[in-house]
C-alpha cells in the first residue's frame, strides 16, 4: 500500500464555478494532506473544463489533474467511472475524497468496487489516525441514530463527504499549483447507459439549499393547500419551503424540497418545522440549522411542540408580520 501517496479530491462544478461541496472537500483534503506530510491534488473531469483548474489551486490543491474529453460532456456515469479508474491507476492517491452529490452517490461505489477497494459514503468527519496513519472515516448510520467510524484496509481509501460538514479554505489566488492533463482512456463501447434527457424541476423563488430560513411541513399538514400557509410564512422570512418525506410521497409538494438523509441536507439560520415528528432520517437533513423551531401538537414527537399548527401558525405568522413591520 506504500506506493499509494497523497490526498486527491474529485472536484465538481456548475457552469464556471466549482461546487461548494468540492471546495469543502479541498479544505478537508488540505488538512489531511498536511497531517500526512503529503500533497493534495484535485481531479477535474469533463469536457472543456481546464479553465476551472486555478480555482482548485486557490482552494488548496498542489496539483490539478484535468481529464478533458468530449465523451465526458454532461458527465455520463459509465464514462466517469472509466475516467476515474484511469486517474487513480496513474495518480495512486492514498485518500480519494468525493462529494455526496448526484454524481458522487453514483460514481463512488462503482469506482471502489472496480478498483477492488472500498468507499465510506456520506462522511461527516475525516481524520488521520496518528498511529496507523490510516483515514478515520466517520459517517451517520441507522438513519442518523448513530455514528460509525470506519477504517479502509485497502488503498485508495475512498470517501464521499456530506455537504456543509467540512470547511473550505478562504480562496487565495496567489497560491501556486501545477496543472497536468491526464488522458481519459475511454472505451466508447463500454458506455452502456445513455442520457436521454435532464429534467430540472426547480421550485420558483429562493432555493432551499441557499435559504437563510426554511419553513418545512410534515405529514400533519395534510394537503397541498396546507403548504400555501407555510409559503406565506416563508415569504415573510425571505426563505424557502421544505418538507419531510410524507408530503413529497403524497405529491403535496415537489420531491426536490425534501429535507432529510435521502433528500436535501441543509444548514439554515432558522428552521421552522411544522407538524413534523422529527424522525432521525429527517433530522439528519436539518440538524445543521442554528435555531430549530418546532410546531407540533404531539408531545411525544421527537422535536418539541407548541401546539396544533392550524391554530398556532396563523397567530405566529400575524405576529411575525407585525414585528417585521415595526
Amino acid at each position, binding site marked *: 500500500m506504500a506506493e499509494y501517496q497523497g490526498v486527491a479530491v474529485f472536484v465538481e462544478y456548475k457552469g464556471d464555478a466549482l461546487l461548494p461541496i468540492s471546495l469543502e472537500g479541498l479544505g478537508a483534503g488540505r488538512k489531511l494532506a498536511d497531517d500526512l506530510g503529503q500533497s493534495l491534488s484535485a481531479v477535474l473531469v469533463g469536457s472543456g473544463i481546464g479553465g476551472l483548474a486555478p480555482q482548485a489551486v486557490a482552494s488548496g490543491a498542489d496539483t490539478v489533474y484535468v481529464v478533458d474529453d468530449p465523451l465526458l460532456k454532461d458527465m455520463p*456515469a459509465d464514462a466517469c467511472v472509466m475516467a476515474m479508474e484511469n486517474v487513480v491507476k496513474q495518480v495512486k492517491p492514498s485518500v480519494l475524497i468525493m462529494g455526496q*452529490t*448526484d454524481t458522487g*452517490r453514483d460514481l463512488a*461505489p*462503482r469506482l*471502489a*468496487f*472496480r478498483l477492488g477497494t*472500498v468507499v*465510506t*459514503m*456520506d462522511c461527516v468527519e475525516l481524520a488521520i489516525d496518528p498511529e496507523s496513519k490510516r483515514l478515520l472515516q466517520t459517517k451517520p*448510520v441507522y*438513519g442518523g*441514530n*448513530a*455514528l*460509525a*467510524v*470506519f*477504517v*479502509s*484496509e*485497502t488503498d485508495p481509501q475512498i470517501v464521499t463527504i456530506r455537504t456543509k460538514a467540512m470547511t473550505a479554505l478562504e480562496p487565495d489566488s496567489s497560491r501556486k499549483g501545477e496543472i497536468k492533463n491526464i488522458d481519459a482512456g475511454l472505451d466508447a463501447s463500454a458506455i*452502456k*447507459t*445513455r442520457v*436521454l*434527457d*435532464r*429534467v*430540472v*424541476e*426547480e421550485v420558483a423563488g429562493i432555493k432551499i439549499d441557499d435559504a437563510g430560513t426554511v419553513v418545512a411541513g410534515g405529514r400533519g399538514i395534510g394537503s397541498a393547500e396546507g403548504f400555501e400557509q407555510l409559503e406565506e410564512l416563508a415569504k415573510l422570512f425571505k426563505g424557502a419551503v421544505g418538507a419531510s418525506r410524507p408530503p*413529497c*410521497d403524497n405529491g403535496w409538494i415537489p*420531491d426536490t424540497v425534501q429535507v432529510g438523509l*435521502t433528500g*436535501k441536507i441543509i444548514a439554515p*439560520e*432558522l428552521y421552522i418545522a411544522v407538524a413534523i415528528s422529527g*424522525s*432521525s*432520517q429527517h433530522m439528519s437533513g436539518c*440538524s445543521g440549522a442554528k*435555531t430549530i*423551531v418546532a*410546531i407540533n401538537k404531539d408531545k411525544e414527537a*421527537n422535536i*418539541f*411542540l*407548541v*401546539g396544533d399548527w392550524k391554530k*398556532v401558525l*396563523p*397567530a405566529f405568522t400575524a*405576529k411575525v408580520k407585525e*414585528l*417585521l413591520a415595526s
Partner: protein
Amino acid sequence: MDIIVCVKQVIDPEAPPSSFKIDAASNKAEMHGAPPVIDPYGEYAVEASLKIKEAVGGKVTVISLGVNLLREVVKKPLAMGADQLILLEEEAFIGGDSRSTANALAAAIRNVGEYDLILCGREASDTNAGQTGAGIAEILGLPCITLARKIDAGDGKLKVERVTSSGYDVLEVPLPAVVTVSNEVGEPRYPTIKGIMAAKKVEPIIWKPADISVDDSELGTGGRRAKLQRLYQPVHEGKCEFTEGDTPEESGANLAQKLREAKVL
C-alpha cells in the same frame, strides 16, 4: 422478464429513536422492544419489481441475506406478490461490509442463472451505505443506474428516471442491468390477505456458501475491506425551550415575540 430483488431484514427504522440502543461490546445496534422489519428502501424495490411484472409479465425472485431471519418478515415481499424467496442464511455471510455482501449476492444471482433485471433499494436503512447495488453490477459486469423513481421496460432495454437534486434524468440502458430504487417510485402496496395466505405456503430456498460456489474468503469478515472501528450515539448539545400560552394562538404569538428577543427575527 426475470427480476431479482435484493432486500434485507433490518431493525425497525420507524421505531422511536428513544428505543435505539448500541451494544458497545459487539458494536451492534437494536431497537429495544420493536421487532425487525423488511428494509423500507428494499420494499420500494419490491414495489418497482411488481409494477414491471404487471406491465410486461415475468417472475420476481427475492434474495435476502442475514441470520435469524424471521419468516413472517422476509416473506413480506412474497405476500406483496413476489414469486420466489431465496435466503442466504448462514453466519459465514454476515459480519462483513458492502463488499462481502455484494460478493455473496452476486454469487447467488449467478446461481439463479436467468435474470434480466436486478433491483436493490437505494441504500439500506441501517448502514445507509448505498453500495450493494453498484457492487453487484461491478462484480457481474453489468450496467448500473442508481436512485430510480420510474422504470419502464421493453425491447430488451429500460428507460429509467433517476432522481437528482434538481429534478430527474431520463436514462436508457440495455438489459441485463442493475437498478437501485428510490422512495419516489411510490408507496409499496400492502400485502393482501390472499397474498399472505399464499406466502405462508411458500418454502424459502436456503443457500449456503457451498451452494453458490463462493469461497469463505470472499464472504463476511473475510471478504471485507472496511473495518468498523467504533459505533456510538452522538450527544446532541443545544438548548431547548418550550413556548407557553393559554391558547395555541397565544403560543404562536409568543413564539414570534421570543424569536424577536433572540434576534432570530
